[in-house]
């Protein structure tokens, strides 16, 4: 019963529409090739992890999808429209919380709305609901400076969700946090995005974290930044921490690690 349900889900995903499509996507900074002719597709509702060592072009790839960095060549479209700049159907979360210290937590969550126009009462309750979702219900009126780093990142997550975009781009969002907090927030994130049924692209340099969260792992190798492989992760989402001890999971981690060592010897 459980298995057949997973299979129907998998089939539904296979037939799902493509939301991000890249062909020969290129980016160079002077003589540095940050992303070298990347081809990939991301389907609606998928969770993609981008993993690779420092400097291999993960952030650059993500920022190109976000429309924050112009590409040097190739084609890139999101929701069927060519990417030319920042857009409303894509939300970005950065490595730092990037909160405004003069605004309270709930005002920070409401920033995307405030920038678009008036903030309604419905927006305020939505923001409060999102704060409940990330476990900050009691801190709506606190200022960011009075929160821990992990709590600040949750505020940023709530703000990302308040944008209401169906594609979430997350660039090492919990990278600066300790391992306990990061693991906890990863679990929450994975629960939240499968509930909201949004498409997510998550950058990390931690292989097991990448696999734990994702449907597909984009493996990138450096110099030049190249999309070396796309690894399918067969376990159903959302996942439990016990998965980390599953032998199949451990095998998969080893396989991805292998791609890097091959890349180095080549």
């Amino acid at each position, binding site marked *: 019963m459980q298995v057949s349900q997973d299979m129907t889900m998998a089939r539904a995903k296979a037939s799902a529409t493509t939301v991000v499509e890249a062909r020969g996507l290129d980016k160079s900074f002077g003589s540095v090739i940050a992303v070298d002719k990347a081809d990939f597709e991301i389907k609606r509702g998928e969770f993609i992890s981008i993993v690779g060592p420092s400097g291999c072009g993960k952030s650059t790839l993500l920022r190109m999808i*976000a429309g924050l960095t112009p590409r040097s060549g190739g084609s890139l479209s999101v929701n069927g429209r060519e990417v030319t700049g920042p857009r409303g159907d894509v939300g*970005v979360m950065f490595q730092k919380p990037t909160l*405004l210290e*003069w605004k*309270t937590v709930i005002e920070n969550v409401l920033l995307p709305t405030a*920038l678009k126009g008036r903030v309604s009462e419905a927006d305020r309750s939505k923001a409060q609901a999102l704060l409940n979702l990330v476990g900050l219900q009691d801190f709506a*009126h*606190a200022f960011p400076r*009075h929160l821990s780093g992990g709590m600040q990142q949750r505020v940023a997550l709530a703000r990302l969700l308040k944008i209401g975009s169906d594609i979430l781009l997350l660039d090492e969002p919990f990278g600066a946090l300790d391992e306990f907090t990061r693991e906890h927030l990863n679990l929450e994130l994975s629960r939240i995005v499968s509930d909201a049924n949004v498409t997510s692209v998550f950058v990390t340099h931690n292989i097991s974290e990448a696999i734990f969260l994702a449907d597909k792992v984009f493996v990138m190798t450096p110099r030049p930044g190249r999309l070396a492989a796309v690894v399918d992760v067969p376990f159903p989402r959302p996942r439990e921490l016990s998965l980390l001890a599953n032998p199949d999971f451990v095998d998969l981690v080893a396989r991805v690690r292998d791609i890097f060592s091959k890349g180095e010897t080549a």
Partner: protein
Amino acid sequence: MSSSANTNETRSWLWRVNPTHAAGHAGLLVGLLVLWETGSRTGLLDPLILPAPTAILAALWQIAVVDRLLWGHFGITLYEAMAGFVIGSAIGIALAIGAALWEPFRRYSAPYVVGLQVTPRIALAPIVIAWLGFGTTPNVAIAALLCFFPPFLNTMTGLLDVDRDLQEMFRSLRASKRQVFTQLMLPTALPYMMAGLKTAMTMALIGAIVGEFISASEGLGVLMHRFTFQLNMAATFAVLVALTLMGLLLFALMEWVDNRIVFWRHDERMQEISRKRAAREAGRAATETPGTARVAPAGRT
């Protein structure tokens, strides 16, 4: 950001008197005054150089309460300093915004700005008086001229110090240029601006007094001049005490304004705002759903 926080901290370190040391402070002050008084009474200190504290106090009483001579002059100087402060700061901040937003202006004005900064601007005082004649107007102008620089420099520094990641975040949210200015650059610059304004306030008072020294018919500077001329040193020192009080008043005013405007640099203020907002929210929830309201706040805390 950190540099302005530092200026604030240095200031509050100077400013804050630890209550546990209050007795020590009072004791030291009384000790010094008694020493000074004794020195004067035994003839060790020439009253033409340094009059006794009691003599200064008596003179203060005389000019402030008996003759009521002090207040008109006090008001004039206060007016000159405040008007000069407002005009100088407004010009400084306006120029800084122009320079921060418009690169060519910044580039071409920089040499003149440096030139104006290295010139001892107080030396312009006689020229300003030659231009503007007598009365309070030249003194307001001197105060403005003297104090415009710190708000100018600090505002520009603040506006250009916007966090790159925050800029990116605003860009990703497709904020307009105007929104970036009003909601990101300006709030970032405010702590710097306030630090500049505090310095400007002190400088404006110096400007007003110097202007009065050079040529004026009213103001505390004039009064001091007159009393020294009469060799009435006690009254001269009494005016100085009045000036110190004015300085303290203006300083306290700026601290208060700083606390209101740059509240996110003051932990107690932030906590107070947080409390008020939460209480207001709770109150609103109570009027909307009276049944659950009583339970919710208790459950939360």
